[in-house]
């Protein structure tokens, strides 16, 4: 393999990882920016996305993957909205410690719940036929499915950008992340904005899980690892900053792809070093504006 195609392959690997991280991190950062909560159960939605894809996969429906791509995020949006209304709303007026604990408890519940519903057997999902196979890049080959994810990332980002900057709902979200009380004073029912943001974040997260299910494993606890990784992305990028989440996710993705070359075991430690440097010198993150 020539150096050029090798570098390209690793770069694409990094992009794939980055796009998945972006989906989860964007939800997490919105929750932090707008609701000022750190949602420990955010990874649980990622996990549910994967498990639900399995369920749709085994139903052997026609175009199962494409149907799943649409209905699973919508389904999770409803479930998460439901949870937010009944479990989180009562806690907003209290100290943030309580929402932290509640989401932590929720993460625990979900980890066992998937075992109870889907059992302990190993679950495997196939890549949809149309996206399987490789494409040749110079003198090497690259999986089409990964390229699909890489393309999907910007598409979703564009949709999100449009939502945030060109719709009324988006305006409300941005306003809420700036000054909630003012928004309330203007007569807007902020409660529903919160629910909307929570549901949006959860459905983005589950989309990430759904996309990785065919090539990663579908296990309880998969949410815990991805939570920490997206947490790092969010802190580096800046709380509440969507653009920051994009940069952070891409950065971490590349680090994970190329890191194993340069310093095999220490690429992860390097990532934490960057995180700590950001926290020490610019706690609001590379692109964040406010410090809570």
């Amino acid at each position, binding site marked *: 393999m020539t150096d050029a195609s090798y570098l390209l392959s690793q770069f694409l690997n990094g992009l794939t990882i980055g796009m998945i991280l972006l989906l989860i991190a964007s939800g997490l950062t919105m929750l*932090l920016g707008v609701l*000022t909560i*750190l949602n*420990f159960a955010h990874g649980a939605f990622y996990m549910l996305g994967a498990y639900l894809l399995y369920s749709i996969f085994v139903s052997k429906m026609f175009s199962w993957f494409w149907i799943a791509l649409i209905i699973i995020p919508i389904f999770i949006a409803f479930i998460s909205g439901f949870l937010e209304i009944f*479990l989180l709303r*009562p*806690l907003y007026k*209290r100290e*943030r*410690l*309580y929402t*932290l*604990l*509640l989401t*932590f*408890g*929720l*993460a*625990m*519940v*979900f*980890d*066992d*719940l998937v*075992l*109870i519903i889907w059992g302990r057997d190993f679950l495997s999902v196939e890549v949809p036929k149309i996206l399987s196979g490789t494409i040749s890049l110079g003198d090497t080959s690259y999986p089409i499915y990964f390229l699909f994810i890489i393309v999907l990332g910007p598409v979703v980002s564009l949709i999100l950008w449009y939502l945030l900057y060109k719709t009324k709902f988006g305006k409300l979200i941005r306003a809420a992340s700036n000054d909630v009380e003012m928004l309330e004073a203007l007569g807007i029912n902020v409660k529903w904005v919160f629910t909307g943001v929570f549901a949006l974040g959860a459905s983005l997260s589950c989309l990430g899980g759904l996309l990785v299910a065919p090539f990663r494993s579908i296990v309880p606890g998969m949410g*815990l690892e991805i939570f*920490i990784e997206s*947490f*790092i992305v969010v*802190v580096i990028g800046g709380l509440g900053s969507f653009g920051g989440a994009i940069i952070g996710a891409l950065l971490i993705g590349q680090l994970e792809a190329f890191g194993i070359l340069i310093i095999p*075991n*220490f690429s*992860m*430690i390097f990532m*934490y*070093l960057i*995180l*700590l440097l950001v*926290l*020490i010198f610019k*706690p609001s993150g590379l692109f964040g504006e406010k*410090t*809570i």
Partner: protein
Amino acid sequence: MKIKNINKIFYTFIFILLFLLPISGNFYYINLFTEIIIISLLVMSLNILIGYTGMISLGHAVFLGLGAYTSALVMKDIYPSIMLGIFSAAIISSLYAFTVGIFCVRVSGLYFAMITLAFSQAIYTITYYWTSLTGGDDGMIGIPRPDLNILGIYNFSLESLENYYYFSLIVVSSLFYVMKKILDSPFGTVLQAIRENPERVQFLGISVFRYKLGAFVLSGFFAGIAGGLFAPFQGFISPELIYWTRSGEIILMTILGGMNSFIGPGIGAGILILLKDNILNYTEYWRIFLGSILIFFVLFMPGGFVGFLSEKFNEIFKIKK
């Protein structure tokens, strides 16, 4: 009778009960309660931050890990003395708390929570990947439990379950006594004032930063000792001790017991460990039970178990607050 005296009687009573436990001969429970005693030290140390100073640390498990690995490494590679192990654990943890605290304590609220989480995960990652030192995710086995050398004359063996139980009980109880004295002193009062209104405290000319840092180091000191006791107790340690879900469990214990009292978190440790143990007798799905209990407590019993009972008690006997 003053409240202070009642508490004293209460604590003495618990101590006596715990002291008598080994007579039951039930090795499993002696083992379990040793763990409860050690972990209660850990949880109480966290409460210095959460309950007294109002600082929510999401990375407290790091001290458990630092203390455990320090005492294990010291006893294995330097000199097999348990007091040296515990002492080193305390020093390293306090040093870490001081160094890291300088950066963490500058910020508060959610940021403080996140920075403590970040630091503890960083240490977890280092512990996980530094295989040559820590054994990586295979963990470290064969942690010795050397005899306790009293005044250079008498050797008290800590090999047996009962003996280590007594050792932990005595060490932890003494530390509780010290902790209580510190928290009842003016230092503790300032911490509580900081919890209520940091700006006012700053206006009074007191350096909030210094007191918060002091609380952080103090909390790290006690937590490190808990880690130092834990390593020889279990004989085996792994990076799992530092993973963020561990920190969550510690906070869970604080809330279960009640963060508004001194001993509450200690009781919370007992409740959680016993609860988890009991649940495991019936089902492997302990997470869904504990998670639901936590959700229930957060929504309906924020004062924790102790707080809840106090309230109910007051209602029944109509005691004015």
